C-alpha cells in the first residue's frame, strides 16, 4: 500500500511522472478510557508501518495498560523513540496539537472533545481524525429470529456495561413483534450477572467511575420523569463484597419516545430505551433525526428490508443481524455527522492515507 505509481512520458514526451508515497513524521493519539489496550492500536501500528513515529496519550483514568504494552514493544526490539507514551491530562493533548513537529492527531472520545480536538488541531495545521459520541439504534423487524436476535442484542447493549461507542442504546421494535420481544428481552436481561469483572462467572462489570455511574443514573431518573417506564431497574443493584463498586445493572426503559432525552443523548451505560414504531421508514427517519451517525443495526430475515436499511441509513457502520458493528482492522472505522470529525477514517486503507502523503516527481533528462 506504500507503493507509488508512475507514468513514463506522463508529462510530455521525455518527461516522466512519479507519485511517491511518503511518511510525514510524528503522529499522536489522544485515547479514551473504555478500551485502553485496543484503541491506540487502531492507529499507531499503521503509523509506524508507514514510516512515522508515534506518541500515545492514554486516558488519565487508565494509564497503566499502554505503559505495559509499550514495554512489550520495547522488549520486542523497537528502536527507541519510535513509539512513545506521554501520560497526563489535557495539557498533554494541547501540547501535542500545538507542537510544530506533530503532523497529525487521532482522537476517540466524546463529541464535544472531538469537536475541540478537530478545531484546535486544524488551527495548528494538523491532520485530524476525531471520533466522537454515538446513539446507536437497533431495529427489530417482525420477521426477526427472536432467540438469536435477543442474544446478539444483549451483547450489544450490556457488553462493557454499555461503555462503548458501538453499543446499542435504542431498541426499536416494528409492528406486532414489540410485546413478545420486549417480554423475552427483559427476562433474559434479568439473567445477566453483574459483578467483579475478573470473576469468570460474571457477565457484566461496573462502569468506570463514580462520576460515570451518577451520569447513567441521572439519565434513568430523567427518563422516568419524562414518562418512560422502568421495566428492569439497574439503579440499586447490590454486588456482595463490592458494595463500593460503581455497578449499574441492566436497565430496560419502556415507552421511550423520540422526544425524550434518553432517546437522543449518549448514556454510555447498560440502559436500553425501548421504542415502538410502525414501519421501517419511521425507524430510519428517527435514526436520521439524531445528530450522531456512528452505527445502526437491523434484525430481519428479509433481504428487501436489509438492503433498504443498508442503503438508506446515514451512519458509518451498519449491522444486519449484527448489533456490534466493529469491523476488522482492514476495514475503515468511523461514524458520520457528530460521531466523527475528519476525512480519513481509522484503520484499513484510510489509515495508510492518513499517515502518508503523496509526492509527485516530474523527471526530464537532458
Amino acid at each position: 500500500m506504500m507503493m507509488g505509481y508512475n507514468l513514463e512520458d506522463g508529462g510530455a514526451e521525455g518527461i516522466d511522472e512519479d507519485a511517491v508515497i511518503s511518511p510525514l513524521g510524528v503522529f499522536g493519539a489522544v485515547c479514551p478510557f473504555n478500551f485502553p489496550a485496543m484503541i491506540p492500536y487502531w492507529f499507531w501500528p499503521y503509523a509506524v508501518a508507514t514510516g512515522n513515529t508515534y506518541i500515545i496519550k492514554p486516558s488519565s483514568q487508565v494509564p497503566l495498560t499502554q505503559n505495559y504494552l509499550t514495554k512489550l514493544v520495547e522488549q520486542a526490539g523497537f528502536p527507541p523513540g519510535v513509539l512513545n507514551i506521554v501520560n497526563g491530562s489535557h495539557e498533554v493533548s494541547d501540547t501535542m496539537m500545538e507542537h510544530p513537529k506533530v503532523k497529525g492527531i487521532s482522537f476517540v472520545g466524546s463529541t464535544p472533545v472531538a469537536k475541540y480536538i478537530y478545531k484546535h488541531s486544524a488551527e495548528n495545521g494538523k491532520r485530524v481524525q476525531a471520533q466522537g459520541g454515538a446513539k446507536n439504534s437497533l431495529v427489530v423487524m417482525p420477521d426477526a429470529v427472536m432467540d438469536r436476535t435477543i442474544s446478539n442484542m444483549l451483547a450489544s447493549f450490556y457488553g462493557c456495561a454499555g461503555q462503548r461507542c458501538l453499543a446499542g442504546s435504542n431498541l426499536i421494535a416494528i409492528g406486532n413483534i414489540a410485546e413478545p420481544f420486549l417480554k423475552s428481552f427483559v427476562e433474559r436481561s434479568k439473567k445477566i450477572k453483574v459483578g467483579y469483572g475478573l470473576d469468570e462467572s460474571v457477565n457484566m462489570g461496573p462502569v468506570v467511575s463514580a462520576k460515570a455511574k451518577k451520569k447513567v443514573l441521572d439519565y434513568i431518573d430523567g427518563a422516568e420523569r419524562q414518562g418512560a417506564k422502568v421495566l428492569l431497574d439497574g439503579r440499586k443493584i447490590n454486588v456482595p463484597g463490592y458494595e463500593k463498586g460503581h455497578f449499574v445493572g441492566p436497565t430496560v426503559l419502556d415507552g421511550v419516545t423520540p422526544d425524550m432525552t434518553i432517546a437522543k443523548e449518549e448514556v454510555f451505560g447498560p440502559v436500553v430505551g425501548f421504542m415502538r414504531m410502525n414501519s421501517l421508514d419511521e425507524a430510519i427517519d428517527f435514526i436520521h433525526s439524531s445528530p450522531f451517525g456512528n452505527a445502526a443495526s437491523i434484525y430481519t430475515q428479509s433481504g428487501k428490508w436489509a438492503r433498504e436499511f443498508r442503503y438508506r441509513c446515514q451512519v458509518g457502520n451498519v449491522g444486519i443481524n449484527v448489533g456490534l458493528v466493529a469491523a476488522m482492522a482492514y476495514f475503515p472505522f468511523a461514524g458520520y455527522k457528530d460521531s466523527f470529525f475528519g476525512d480519513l477514517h481509522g484503520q484499513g486503507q484510510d489509515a495508510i492515507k492518513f499517515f502518508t502523503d503523496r509526492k509527485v516527481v516530474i523527471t526530464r533528462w537532458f
Partner: protein
Amino acid sequence: MVECDFPECNTFGSAIRFALELEKGAAGIYEDLAMEPKAASVAETFKALAAAHKKRGELLEFTRQQKLNEMILEPIQDIRREDYIIDTKTPKGADVKTAANFAAKMEATSAKFYLDAAKIAKNLMAEAARIMDKLGKESLANKAKLEAL
C-alpha cells in the same frame, strides 16, 4: 493420573474450557488404562481412543478460535459443573472388563455433557452446537464399543 481443572460452566467460554478439560482427562484415562498389564489385550484400543480424544481437544480448540464468531454475553444456567466431572483416577490393576467399564462410565458422562450443551447452544451458536452434538454422539459410540469389550 492426569490432573484436570474443571471450570464452572456458566458462560459459553467456560463451557468450551470445560470441554477441553474433559478431553484432556479422557485422553489421560485411556493412556493410563493402556498401561495396565491385565488389560494388555486391549491396550491398542485404549491408545487409539486416547489419540481420538486428543484430536477432539484440537477440534474444540479450533472451534473456540475460529468458529465462535459471536460474543455471547448471556450466562448458561442449565449446566451444572458437578454433573459432568469425570473421575480421572483409573483403577490400578484393572482387567479388561474393569478398565472398559471405567472408561465407558467416563464416555457416558462426556456424552451427556456434550448433548446437553449442544441443546443449549443450538439457538445461539449453531456451529458450536453442531460440534458438541458430534462429540456427544462419538462418546456414545465409544461407550458402546467399550461395553462390548
